[in-house]
């Protein structure tokens, strides 16, 4: 167990190192002089020169990487040029928003996905199966931004039930916060619901046709008990792993959803920063989320091994 842990921990370091190179490279290689992009409308040559100096833009790539990495290892992710605030401060400010959105989306995904998976498995190959399938898949089959806009037009403009966009802190007004988050969480969770549905369905089918369940049925156990207690339990075991995977998917989907709904989370931060060439923001946030993702994966692996020692491999 200990050796397993050490091995897995050791794997994280090179992974994160590669992440840092990957995201640094992607940002620095973006066409366009960042200093010009950051210098504003008037393009004052003094400002451009100042920015070039401040961000060592005239030095070779590896040197710039060195400056950045050194800062990261000291906990300094740099500053956002556009709004003149430290990246780490921005991360701390936006983390709760992103986490709340991810949790709400995950909840919706679980509710829709798992129930659709159960229904689909139990009523396999009947119209109910297909209906559940389509229901879970439709979230995956529509672009996020489009679904978001349709929902806004329906629920905010036509019906007036929910706010069209924007974000209110839960500490300020919990009801308004939930009202502002429910549509984006739904849009996000929808897509992941399909992943959960597929998994639940296949895991349940696997169990439902196994000897163990056949025995339970032969014993005369109520079908519902069979389904819920035995098959479902098997289906839920890898949920931990899926949860970690889900975070990555959700963050990807959040990029556009946050744009459309004006939720000030990581997704919107990164996209705006890419287009404004505010590259320290992109690098810092992606490195942060990658670290979280990798850590969650590690936790999931450990949990899986604890639950199921055969998986130690």
């Amino acid at each position: 167990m200990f050796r397993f842990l050490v091995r897995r921990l050791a794997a994280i370091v090179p992974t994160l190192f590669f992440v840092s190179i990957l995201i640094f490279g992607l940002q620095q290689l973006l066409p366009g002089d960042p200093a010009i992009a950051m210098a504003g409308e008037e393009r004052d040559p003094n400002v451009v020169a100042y920015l070039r100096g401040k961000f060592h833009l005239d030095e070779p790539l590896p040197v710039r990487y060195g400056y950045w990495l050194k800062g990261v290892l000291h906990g300094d992710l740099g500053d956002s040029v556009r709004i003149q605030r430290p990246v780490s401060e921005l991360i701390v400010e936006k983390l709760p928003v992103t986490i709340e959105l991810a949790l709400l989306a995950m909840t919706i995904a679980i509710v829709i996905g798992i129930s659709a998976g159960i229904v689909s498995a139990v009523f396999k190959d009947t119209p109910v199966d297909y209906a559940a399938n389509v229901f879970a898949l439709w979230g995956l089959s529509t672009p996020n931004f489009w679904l978001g806009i349709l929902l806004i037009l329906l629920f905010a403009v036509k019906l007036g039930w929910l706010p069209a966009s924007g974000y209110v802190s839960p500490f300020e007004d919990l009801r308004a916060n939930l009202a502002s988050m429910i549509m984006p969480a739904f849009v996000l969770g929808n897509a992941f619901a399909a992943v959960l549905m597929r998994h639940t369905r296949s895991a349940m089918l696997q169990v439902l046709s196994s000897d163990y369940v056949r025995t339970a049925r032969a014993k005369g156990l109520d079908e519902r008990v069979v389904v819920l207690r035995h098959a479902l339990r098997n289906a839920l075991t890898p949920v931990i792993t899926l949860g970690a995977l889900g975070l990555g998917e959700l963050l990807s989907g959040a990029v556009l959803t946050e744009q459309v709904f004006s939720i000030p989370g990581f997704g919107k931060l990164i996209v705006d920063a890419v287009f404004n060439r505010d590259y320290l923001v992109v690098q810092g946030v992606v490195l942060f989320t990658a670290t979280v993702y990798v850590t969650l994966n590690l936790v999931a692996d450990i949990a899986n091994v604890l639950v199921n020692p055969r998986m130690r491999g």
Partner: protein
Amino acid sequence: MAAAIPANGIAVPRELSPWQRALRRLVRRRGAMVGLAVVVFFVVLALFAPWISPYDPLATSWSAVRKAPGAAHYFGTDEIGRDVLARVIWGARASLMAGVISVSISLAIGVPIGLAAGYIGGWLDMLISRFTDAMLACPFLILAIALAAFLGPSLANAMIAIGIAATPIFIRLTRAQVLAVKVEDYIEAARAVGNSQLRIALRHVFPNIVAPLIVQATLAIAAAVIAEASLSFLGLGQQPPAPSWGSMLNTAKNYVDQAPWMAVWPGLSIFLLVLSFNLLGDGLRDALDPRHV
């Protein structure tokens, strides 16, 4: 793999090969068949666009700006007078290409790398795995956006960006499959007989890992079509005046009140195509993986 011949030499009816059995299972699954039919429909639409399309998708007309669907324009016209039906038909090309070519790129790069990592192992495997982990740790859309911004806004670059961003999934899948198959008896046998590593990899390992790759590829095509639409939302996909459903939807969202037909048709098309690929992929998974029956 030939049918087994029993030791007592009595002829028995030929068993179906695993592929034929899988096909039977697939056909039986109605959702997958509907999906396949829709996909074929759109492929035909895309291939025969020049002959089916009622108008030139690029032909503007100042007098016919945003006309509602009618006799002259079955799907209506867009904000600079182009026929929406024509653009939807031609847009099928762009969207299908976005899906298929992106995934082809992912397969072309990902499968050989995954094969190498899984089969050769050692430090090469470690290097590849860590780099794949790193790519997977970055949100897919962020990678795609950064790559597309790097290459420049165009459909071709969007396809490359999506393809590259989706590659790690195939590397990981291929590698996992190779690791599972590597320890099978027939590989041992092939090695014992003296086949070269390359021959083993291509003739024995590869055919046995193809099934999950096909499934993943189908599902990835669905995701790629959505990804192109998402990139178009940010201005990075197919550029005007050439049509793609994603960029049409992006333009149309500004006119949802005055000209809903501009959005309805491309939106419906994306939905149907992507849903169909998803259904087909799920069906293939059921059919090809005997454990999932």
